[in-house]
């Protein structure tokens, strides 16, 4: 490669970009630049303006003011396809796949290969295979319907679809948040190859270790402003977090209290469901946070759904506070004190167009009603208490819940359940795509709830989180619990080894050999 003229080196340059939504400032006078052959992380809390920045670059929204230059010439993209044509491709946080089309259809959806004017299915399939193998995920069958793939694999397909557009500037917006560890490795390798080929990569992630591992350079945003850009290694993680939130954070995770044998609140014995749950036995005591670990799709989500009464045909014994129960629906599970924060807050956790207040009250309306009539006074008090308790940031409780940032939306989901006073709280990856500040609030809240006597079962794809938050972690593999880790055994090595269902000693031995 010829030595680049320093004035020419920035591939993408933004100058003085501002954007407002209905009077609310999203970006204010942002100057920003990124280069070819570099992975550039964009950091900031939810609501810091990262998503708006990316949407402007990708042509989804137009800035109110400011200029954008790509490869030295001024551009302004009216639509995402205009941006694509210029080599700017974005993988958004919200997946954009059509669930009922095949993987191959989805990958080529914008410009399918044609023969005689008709879609050439064979070429399309070959193309999908090539792109998937570029990522290292040849095992995804291009003819499968996207609906049937686990979330992690859907994200892989999303990445393959973006690669198919041959990006010059690739933007990943939380695009690895649902990936399993194995897939993450493959995506990292692919990003390294793209980088070597001179592609400019913009990368948004809330996982600090991921940013540390990947990025050559990072920019921090806060409240719609570009705060600082620095090269890898110039700032410590603590510094970065400080820049992002502008306030001190004492500890990442709240301290764990000394455990004493508590009475089990939730006990399951030989729980089985189809081929996904295989003789699960587990008991959780009052005040305990138990983590569910393992690779994605090993039955953790099915376990949570089974406990919550969603699945049909579950066998085995389930006791709540020494009483055998068999919840046949979420309504029944709720009545014995079980709460579930579901996987996808936008489709399962919230009615997005409805107000924050309506979403908060929906699970506890029975308790807030006199006969069939809602007691509006009591309802309002309960809602205000919930908002205050979780410190949900909002203008008015009558606003649509969709106007909140992701982290605050997740707080609404959790607050909704806390209003029912649950004894058992099931959490399905509740911190996915949430900013650091809110994550820490959630960790603190979990510990607080446990201290008040709740039993918490916590599934997370983030091992760090499991280690930091949980008193105990059970690892699932192929529908079974293969290992239980606690105390000093609760380490990343042990979790990874058990997730792959290899003996820890073997893993250590293999490393030494």
């Amino acid at each position, binding site marked *: 490669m010829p030595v680049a003229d320093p004035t020419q080196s920035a591939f993408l340059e933004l100058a003085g970009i501002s954007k407002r939504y209905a009077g609310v400032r999203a970006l204010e006078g942002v100057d920003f630049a990124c280069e070819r052959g570099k992975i550039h992380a964009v950091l900031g809390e939810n609501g810091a303006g990262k998503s708006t920045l990316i949407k402007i670059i990708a042509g989804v929204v137009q800035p109110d003011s400011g200029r954008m230059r790509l490869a030295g010439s001024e551009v302004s993209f009216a639509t995402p396809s205009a941006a694509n044509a210029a080599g700017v491709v974005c993988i958004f946080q919200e997946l954009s796949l059509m669930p009922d089309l095949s993987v191959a259809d989805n990958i080529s959806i914008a410009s399918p290969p044609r023969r005689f004017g008709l879609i050439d299915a064979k070429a399309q399939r070959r193309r999908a295979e090539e792109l998937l193998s570029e990522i290292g995920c040849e095992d995804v069958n291009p003819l499968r319907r996207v609906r049937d793939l686990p979330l992690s694999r859907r994200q892989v397909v999303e990445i393959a679809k973006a690669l198919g557009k041959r990006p010059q500037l690739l933007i990943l917006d939380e695009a690895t948040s649902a990936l399993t560890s194995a897939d993450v490795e493959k995506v990292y390798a692919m990003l390294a190859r793209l980088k070597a080929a001179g592609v400019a990569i913009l990368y948004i992630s809330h996982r600090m270790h991921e940013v540390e591992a990947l990025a050559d350079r990072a920019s921090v945003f806060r409240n719609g402003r570009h705060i600082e850009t620095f090269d890898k290694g110039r700032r410590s993680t603590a510094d970065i977090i400080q820049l992002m939130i502008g306030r001190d954070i004492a500890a990442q995770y709240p301290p764990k209290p000394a455990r004493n044998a508590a009475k089990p609140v939730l006990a399951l014995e030989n729980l089985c469901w189809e081929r996904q749950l295989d003789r699960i036995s587990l008991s959780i005591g009052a005040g305990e946070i138990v983590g569910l670990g393992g690779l994605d799709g090993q039955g953790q989500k099915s376990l949570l759904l089974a406990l919550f009464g969603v699945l049909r045909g579950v066998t085995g014994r389930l006791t709540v506070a020494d009483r055998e129960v068999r919840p046949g629906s979420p309504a029944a599970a*709720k009545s014995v004190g079980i709460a579930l924060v579901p996987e996808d807050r936008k*489709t399962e956790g919230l*009615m997005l167009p409805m107000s924050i207040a309506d979403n908060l009250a929906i699970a506890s309306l*029975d308790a807030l009603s006199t006969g069939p009539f809602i007691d509006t006074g009591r309802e309002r008090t309960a809602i205000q208490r919930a908002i205050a308790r979780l410190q949900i940031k909002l203008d008015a409780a009558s606003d649509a819940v969709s106007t909140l940032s992701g982290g605050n939306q997740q707080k609404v989901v959790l607050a909704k359940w806390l209003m029912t006073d649950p004894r058992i709280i099931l959490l399905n990856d509740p911190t996915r795509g949430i900013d650091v500040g809110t994550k820490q609030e959630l960790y603190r809240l979990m510990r607080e709830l446990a201290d008040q006597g709740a039993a918490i079962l916590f599934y997370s794809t983030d091992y760090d989180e499991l280690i930091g938050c949980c008193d105990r972690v059970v690892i699932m593999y192929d529908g079974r619990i293969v290992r239980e880790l606690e105390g000093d055994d609760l380490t990343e090595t042990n979790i990874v080894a058990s997730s792959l269902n290899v003996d820890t000693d073997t893993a250590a031995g293999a490393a030494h050999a």
Partner: protein
Amino acid sequence: MTAASFSLSRDDRPILIAAAFIVVILVAGTVYTFARFGSAPLLSPAYLLQQLQIGAFLGIVSAGMMIVILIAQIDLSVPWTLAAAAMMATSVGGPLAIPVGLGVGVLVGLVNGVGVAYLRVPSMIFTLGVNAVMRGLMVAHTGGYAPQTGATDLMRMLAGDRTLGIPNALFVWAAVSVLVVVILQRMSLGRYIYAIGNKEAAAYLAGVNTRRVTVVCFVLCGLAAALAGVLLAGYSTKAYQGMGDAYLLPSIAAVVIGGTNILGGRGRYLGTLIGVVLIVLLNSVLSIMEMPEAGRQVIYGLVIIFMLLVYGRGERVTS
């Protein structure tokens, strides 16, 4: 009612537009009649009350239809639920006429609700099938002729008579309206209805008994159609074949013109009321103009499409 706490939200926009359109219809109709006959019958209270009396039947059907549309379903069995209720009421006669008629509505609603909520058949297909079944049953029951039995005195009184100069049918309509507003605004059932319409999965996972709510909604819709049938039989003194056919499309149109999202989850009852009035007045102005039936249908359809286009513009910006 909600008009007291009036603030201009996106739910109010269609209601205002529809209300404005009612004014336009009245003005245009009056200009026409004044130029042609030198009188303004559209603005006389007697004429308006008579139109509203006819509108009451549509209003009651629409109230039930709105509840079903709010949970993102549809009830296409309304025409023959209405006719069956009327026919059974007149053929039973006596003091049991009205309870039997309403019982038909509850029964059809139950069948619809179970089919949609438990058997998971799409409501568009299931209720269409139930409509055909009801029609067949009624043809078998009557032999395909107009039933010879007449409406009871109570039915005639409720639908045709007046109290203090106001048609009794309007009181029934008002009672139904109050009930629907109470359900939608004050009861947990109403909150569940909106929740299911917005995102059934989220409502289900919040511990809402979505299937039971769905059944209740279809029962309410069947009940409303049956009530309209019983009243309509009282108004025309007897039941007749196809008496409900003229109510299916207008009831859906009234709900949608009133701003209720056809995909569920959003809409206010005030809008449905205004939608009913709009359709009734539009029909009556067209008939005053002696518009031939063909032209009436065209205008009627165009108005519905036009109104929805106007609403649709506002929506796209928010999404």
